[in-house]
């Protein structure tokens, strides 16, 4: 920009400077015989000088007007007023700059609104957490006090202790999820994107649910090219896929199947995770990814409703997305789209 301005200044001075040549020629050059030519030279030179001078003044005036306009707009925005004489759709540079300023202002407003909303959400989150934590805590407390107060037979004790352990585990799981979630949401978490083999990641995700699946007698098929490389964060992607798998195992009845298939596309690599579970109604496609959402049918099963939310957040942070397709009673397919492009 400075370079440009330097150039323009030297240029605006060049014209009158060169125009002075005929002026002096007209005055001093006796060699030019005809008085008419000399007068003509002098006059035309002077005229050019004058025009250059007027032109420059006009240009300065325009610059000033332009600056005034912009400053006026900024002042108005600072005071929270609507800027006067704003014509955002005028085909002029002033309007362009003004429009950009307004856009920026809106943007800042939006940011403020969002941070307010965030605080609100955080508050809700705290209450959510406290609500979620309350039940297992209360259970633990209750069973602990029962255990402490009454003498119970060994069997009963064992049962209660198991329950306490379960509740503690649930609490632990909840806390883990919350930590992950909060790290994701506050942006502390940084993805370590690397070109890695996708099947390794899937294997990692599978390792977390294999035991449970075996327990429920659910068969798992994986079809994935062993040399397929995708630009992703192994740890978090495994977590996301793991959550989906976990979800699948949870809602698939005994003897069901879960199949994972991978197909590389032009822009994305698609990972389909299909189960033969209860399915999701079309109107709840979007809801399942909401925080703490649990379908009514799923209420009986353990879980806090954070898994899919986390999975989606993780994939989104890697510029991928997840879609779902389901048929009630027949099963659900979650498709994870991971972008191929290495930036």
């Amino acid at each position: 920009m400075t370079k440009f301005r330097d150039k323009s200044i030297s240029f605006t001075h060049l014209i009158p400077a060169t125009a002075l040549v005929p002026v002096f020629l007209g005055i001093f050059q006796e060699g030019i015989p005809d008085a008419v030519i000399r007068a003509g030279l002098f006059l035309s030179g002077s005229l050019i000088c004058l025009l250059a001078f007027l032109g420059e003044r006009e240009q300065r005036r325009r610059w000033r007007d332009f600056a005034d306009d912009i400053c006026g707009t900024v002042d108005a925005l600072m005071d929270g007023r609507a800027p006067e004489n704003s014509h955002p759709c005028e085909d002029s540079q002033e309007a362009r700059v003004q429009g950009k300023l307004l856009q920026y202002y809106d943007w800042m407003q939006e940011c403020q609104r969002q941070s307010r909303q965030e605080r609100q959400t955080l508050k809700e989150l705290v209450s959510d957490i406290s609500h979620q934590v309350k039940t297992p805590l209360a259970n633990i407390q209750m069973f602990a006090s029962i255990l402490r107060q009454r003498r119970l037979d060994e069997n009963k004790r064992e049962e209660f202790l198991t329950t306490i352990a379960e509740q503690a585990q649930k609490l632990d799981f909840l806390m883990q999820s919350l930590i992950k979630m909060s790290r994701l949401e506050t942006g502390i978490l940084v993805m370590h994107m690397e070109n890695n083999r996708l099947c390794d990641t899937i294997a990692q995700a599978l390792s977390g649910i294999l035991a449970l699946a075996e327990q429920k007698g659910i068969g798992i098929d994986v079809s994935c090219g062993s040399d397929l490389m995708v630009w992703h964060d192994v740890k978090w992607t495994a977590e996301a896929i793991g959550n989906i798998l976990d979800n699948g195992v949870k809602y698939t009845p005994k003897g069901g199947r879960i199949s994972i298939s991978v197909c590389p596309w032009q822009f994305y690599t698609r990972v389909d995770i299909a189960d033969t579970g209860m399915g999701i109604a079309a109107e709840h496609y979007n809801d399942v990814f909401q925080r703490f959402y649990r379908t009514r049918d799923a209420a009986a099963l353990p879980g806090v409703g954070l898994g899919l939310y986390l999975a989606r957040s993780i994939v989104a942070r890697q510029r991928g997305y997840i879609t779902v397709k389901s048929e009630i009673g027949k099963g659900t397919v979650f498709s994870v789209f991971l972008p191929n492009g290495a930036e």
Partner: protein
Amino acid sequence: MLSEETDACGPKPAGCEKGVVIIMNEMLRILTRRSFAAGRIRNLIAALAIALTATLFTSVAAIAMGTVESLTLTMQMQKMSRSDGELHYMTREQFEALRESDLIETAGLRMPVGFVSNTLRHNIELDVEDEVQAELTFCAPDHGRAPRAENEVVASDLALRELGVEPQVGAQITVSFTAHGQEYTLPLVVSGWYKALNDQMSVMWPGTSFRDAHPEIFRYTFREDHDMAGTYFSDFTVRSTVHLEENLRKLVRSLGGDPDDVQSPDYLQSVVNRATNARMNPARMAAAAVFTGLFMLCGYLLIYNVFDIAVMQQIRRFGLYRTIGMSRRQVRALMNRQALWLGGVGTPPGLLAGFLIGKAALPVIMSTLSTEYRNLAVSVSPSPALFLTGAALSAFTVWISTRKPVRVAANTPPVEALRFVERAGARRGSRRSAPGANLFRLAWSNLGRSGRRTVFIMLSLALCVVLLNCVGTVAESVDVEKQTAFMIRTDFAVVNVASASNLKGFTRRSEALRRQTMEDIAAQPGVRDGSAVYKNTAEDTNVTYDFGHPMTEQSFVNPYSGLTFAFDEAFRSFGLGRDGRPMCNVYGMEEIALSRMDLREGETDAHALYEKMAAGEGVLVGVNVDRRDMSLNPFVDLVEVGETITVYKNGQAVMELPVLAKAAANGDDREIGYTVNGPNEIGGDGPLLYLPSCIYERLYDQPSVYKYSFDVKEGYEEETTAFLDDYMKNTDPDINYLSARTARESAEKSREMIRFVGGTVGVIFGLAGVLNLINTMITIILTRRREFATMESVGMTRRQLTKMMVYEGVCYALGGCLPGLILAAALNMTLVRGLLASMWQFTFHFTLAPALAASVVLLMVSGLIPILTLRFFHRGSVVEQLRAAD
């Protein structure tokens, strides 16, 4: 939804390096350049169209300017002066004052002495001149130098030969002349010579030192005896030719002279050189305007269509641009820039081609004029004015013709523009798939797609047909016989060279035919019915006629014949004799000549009439014909049969001649061919009087023969022509002749010229139409690729497709030619007929042959174009075509 928004307000990670350097400030420049690369054929055609238009304008401007330039130069050479005007009879003081005048740019010095007396055939005028004058009057030496010493002169080659020496610097000559009544014979030395412009006369000029050495010759006695020797003449050029005549009068008055009254002692004659300062001819200007308009129309039809097609082809692009935010102004600017580019590419070659064509065509056109103008100098120079005119007119045409397409491009709503092709394609596709559709009907219905363009193509084709037919009709209607009959009544007519010049005419006894010449001709084999015709001259002022016609007092001196002329109230002019009565134009002829005349009223039997006239019982009066209908022209029909004309000789009434008959006088009866200047210089508008030779010889002191006309026996034309050419060259250079054959040839030449010029115009329109057609065909093929491919994929063969396109082309031609034929016929019967009726050279003759011929050619071409364009632009398999359409 919180997580995605958390980092919204934070600074964007500047992860992308600033590696992509993008500097593209000038969108229009890029878009124009790209669109050029994209539409090469389209732009080629557009540039061609503009080039054609520029060619048109430039060639026509070159021809027009060249003709004017050549004619001006020719006339200047005939007039032997390229000055703006002349002043005569000045004193030395007046001349000096003239030189200082503000009006004058340069003034030459000329002091006439007189004619050299020791010459026979070539007249030599002896004038003291300076170099300025010599330059202005075409007698500056081509060899040697201007005279310095008192005995040095510059003369023409012919003058030197006449004086018996070869033209050569340093040659010694002896010259005799008379000045102030005294004879001089001086030995002179040639310091330089030049080539004479004409055979009859040239100027020999010594320098001012000659004047200083012979003061007695240059005594100023003009006021006393009107002797020119001693007076100053000057040919000059002026600073501004605006109101030249008026300014000259003022100048003369400021010099102390009288510009009007011949009788005044202070009379100073000023003459504007009409060769240089030709009066603007409104008819010619109108013709030029009409032609310019026609060519602009032609260019408009062509360029409009080209740009219309360009817009149509690009309408989706514009729609896209408009959708994503290009303003109308920007679209207009984009189109204008394209037009500017195309104009810049197309105009220069067009200008060059136009100039070359004009240069090549000029001699052809000029040669048709050469019968009326002798010694034509053909010249056209590549002047900036010419190219500027051509460029300005073509730029204007481009501008005019692109207004509408540009507006359409800018104003089509973006959504419509974006869908333009798709929608049209869908509509057509469904209609087309109907099985067994009639190909011809299909083709015809396709024409209606772009109404205006179709109309323009048809219009230019129709204009081609109409113009060609009009020109053909006019050429066909050139009445060669009528013109020949007007120009000459016999097979041959031998006249003095003066009679052959439109600017001179027979006015002097010295110009009479020699008896020897007539005898030599009469002795030729095959010559029969020879007859010499006498005519009164400017010297025969002693014979005058009174036919009872009142005249006003106003008079002027005819500068050529030196006679005083008087007017009547209708501004007919009459040359006056010494006693102030009209001299009339009087002819003396033999019976054989009289019998050829066209007797209209009174005694119409030639023999009986001649008998009576020979007996002195009366006279035959000739009246100029109105050439349009060959009737007697009432303007000069002054005497009636039965009225009596009194003949005066030396102031005494010598005869009373009743008017026995009236004849319609054509060119031959007045002088010869179209050259009728002689009678104008003598009798003016007075009646033409025809007398038998015997009476004429009795009446006039020194009867002069101005014409010898004769017929030849069958098969002797060639021989006689050869004899006359040879005789003219070697024996008697003062004669010239006109033959019935050359008269016919000159009439035919004008027909040729009409055919040439009109045919060129017609062909150009045809070319515009054909180019339009080619352009349209290419467009159709390119824009309907997908449609064609679809049709081919559902089973239309390439043959059928070609056939359909041929039908479409033929439809265009039919749509142009049929109305063209009808219009041509209608125009023929009305406009052309009316126009021709006002011009005597023509006799209207209805014909549609040129229109039919043009139609056949156009039909054939329009059938051929689709075949060729399909071959060039519709190649590859159906699949490729389908893909290309995307």
